[in-house]
């Protein structure tokens, strides 16, 4: 404990976050070993890893950069489709699953990161709600494009179409890789809970180190006062773009995890639409804007909550909504905060009085 105190507060705080993830991982592993985790819950573990990474990466945009993005699922979608496309094409050529998955991760992250830069350059000039609406529009466009894209492969190479499979004009031996609204079928199932947790740790490492670096301080300076930051020589565009594209690339990583856990990858409104983007935003805001550990906890709790409420069947989403509203009011309403502080004060005073009695 003494050693812990000597470390500065920041390092200790980061360490707690890493340890928390590792401990949770060990607990879950123990539960799986002892067989007390239902298969339903086990099926949730890999998506849960993807959600945690999404929440942490969105927190980089919303909490650290201070810009509202409603299209995070779009970047996830890009990462998912690019990597699944790669893995399906090379599942025969690269038999080593680990290597293939590693390259898929790089491809997914790079594709999403490039999208982040392409969107970011023009869009980061916009402010506040306008940025939000453009990112929302981007997410919807990506989802829409993935639904009309057909790609096939035969001896002559790749064929593209936006109409249907017949329009691909393939040789008889051709294979359809992306089948429009039916998506990609037969992506190798390379994701696992352990890999997911390792990627969460990697994401945390990247984000936490970025926040506490010179660049991170520049990004937060822009968030707090753009004009002041500009006046002391911070390159606003560069740092905004940096945060935004890293956030997008990490969302792409989440997409890779998500895609390599599904037999069929399709771009549905519920997994890549704005509903998903909003769900990630809910994780971030509920966990505390700018608080990385909070995002992780909120992502876990809110993903498991509907499952834990499953016994209430029809009422569970209703209760989810009510809990969400109640938690927001309790956490953010100035009156509730005042009341909580007053109560905490009273509690402290009583504790002190008790200590004096003894």
């Amino acid at each position, binding site marked *: 404990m003494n050693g812990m105190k000597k470390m500065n507060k920041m390092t200790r705080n980061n360490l707690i976050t890493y340890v928390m993830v590792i401990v949770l991982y060990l607990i879950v592993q123990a539960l799986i070993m002892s067989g007390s985790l239902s298969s339903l819950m086990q099926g949730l573990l890999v998506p849960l890893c993807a959600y945690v990474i999404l929440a942490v990466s969105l927190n980089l945009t919303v909490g650290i950069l201070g810009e509202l993005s409603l299209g995070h699922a779009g970047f996830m979608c890009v990462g998912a489709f690019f990597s699944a496309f790669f893995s399906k094409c090379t599942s025969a050529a690269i038999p080593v699953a680990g290597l293939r998955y590693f390259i898929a991760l790089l491809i997914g992250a790079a594709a999403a990161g490039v999208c982040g830069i392409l969107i970011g350059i023009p869009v980061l000039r916009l402010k506040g709600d306008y940025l939000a609406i453009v990112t929302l529009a981007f997410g919807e466009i990506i989802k829409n494009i993935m639904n009309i894209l057909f790609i096939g492969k035969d001896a002559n190479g790749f064929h593209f179409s936006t109409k249907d499979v017949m329009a691909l004009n393939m040789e008889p031996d051709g294979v359809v890789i992306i089948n429009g609204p039916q998506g990609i079928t037969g992506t190798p199932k390379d994701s696992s809970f352990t890999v997911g947790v390792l990627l969460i740790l990697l994401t945390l490492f990247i984000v936490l180190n970025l926040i506490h670096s010179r660049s991170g301080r520049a990004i937060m300076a822009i968030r707090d006062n753009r004009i002041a930051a500009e006046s002391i020589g911070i390159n606003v565009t560069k740092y905004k773009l940096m945060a935004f594209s890293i956030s997008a690339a990490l969302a792409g990583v989440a997409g890779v995890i998500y895609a390599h856990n599904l037999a069929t990858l399709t771009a549905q409104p519920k997994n890549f639409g704005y509903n998903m983007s*909003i769900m990630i935003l*809910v994780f971030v805001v509920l966990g505390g804007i700018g608080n990385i550990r909070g995002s992780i906890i909120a992502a876990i709790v809110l993903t498991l909550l509907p499952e834990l409420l499953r016994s209430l069947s029809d009422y569970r989403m209703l209760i989810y*909504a009510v809990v*969400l509203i109640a938690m*927001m009011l309790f956490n*953010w309403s100035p009156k509730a905060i005042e009341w909580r502080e007053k109560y905490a004060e009273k509690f402290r005073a009583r504790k002190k009085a008790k200590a004096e009695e003894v």
Partner: protein
Amino acid sequence: MSFISYLINGISLGSVYAIIALGYTMVYGIAKMLNFAHGDVIMIGAYVVLTAMTGAGLPPAAAVLAAVIFCTVLGMLIERVAYKPLRNAASPLAVLITAIGVSYLLQNLALLIFGANTKSFTSVVPIPPVVLAEGNLTISGETIMTIGACIVIMAGLTLFINRSKAGQAMRAVSEDKGAAQLMGINVNGTIALTFAIGSALAAIAGVLLCSTYPTLTPYTGAMPGIKAFVAAVFGGIGSIPGAMIGGILLGIIEIFGKAYISSQMADAIVFGVLIVVLLVKPAGILGKNIQEKV
């Protein structure tokens, strides 16, 4: 002829978007919040009309009136319970997430009460279709009603905002809440009134939407809600004529995109145009670009 018929359909759909966007833009102008639950108020309005007509056997006009009253009360209730406590919260995102929570709540309430099945909606419009150009062009009664309602609402709202005392108070509050309060304006009352008007418009939009596209599910309101939000931003959020122009343009683009380019790509086209417009005019078509002062 098909061009004109697409154009009229576009204006009709755009009018619905415009009416919804008016609610979005008024609430944004005054409370500086994106009311994500607005789309779901539309859906509730449509369910109330359906229940009132088939369940209680009310005539269409009375059913619509019931929906308007119900949604007005609902809108004020939502504002009072879920948004007002967060008005001075540290982050503007707090109230956004609460609005999302309200949206989930309304959708799931509708799901519990009315079920997930698609309900077919009977049109409430008594106007017969008009046939023009020797039968080549038919304009449905719903289209005429929608466009007419949109013009009436637009004119009425402009008069109300510019001429009435309450409208003046609204403009003052949207400009500077603190100063308005010092001038003796009841800020809370004004904001509640804005939500009431916005929700009443949502009910009307719901009826018109479901009369034209006669299917109703608990998720009916979500996509038109988002599109109307896009329309409001398109025209310059906070501006009433902007919402109108944005809505109608959006409707026309959507119908033309569906007709001439690709029906599956229509949404992507709408959102693509939005991105281009915002890059050229970052504050929307009629939005004011306010210079930042140091």
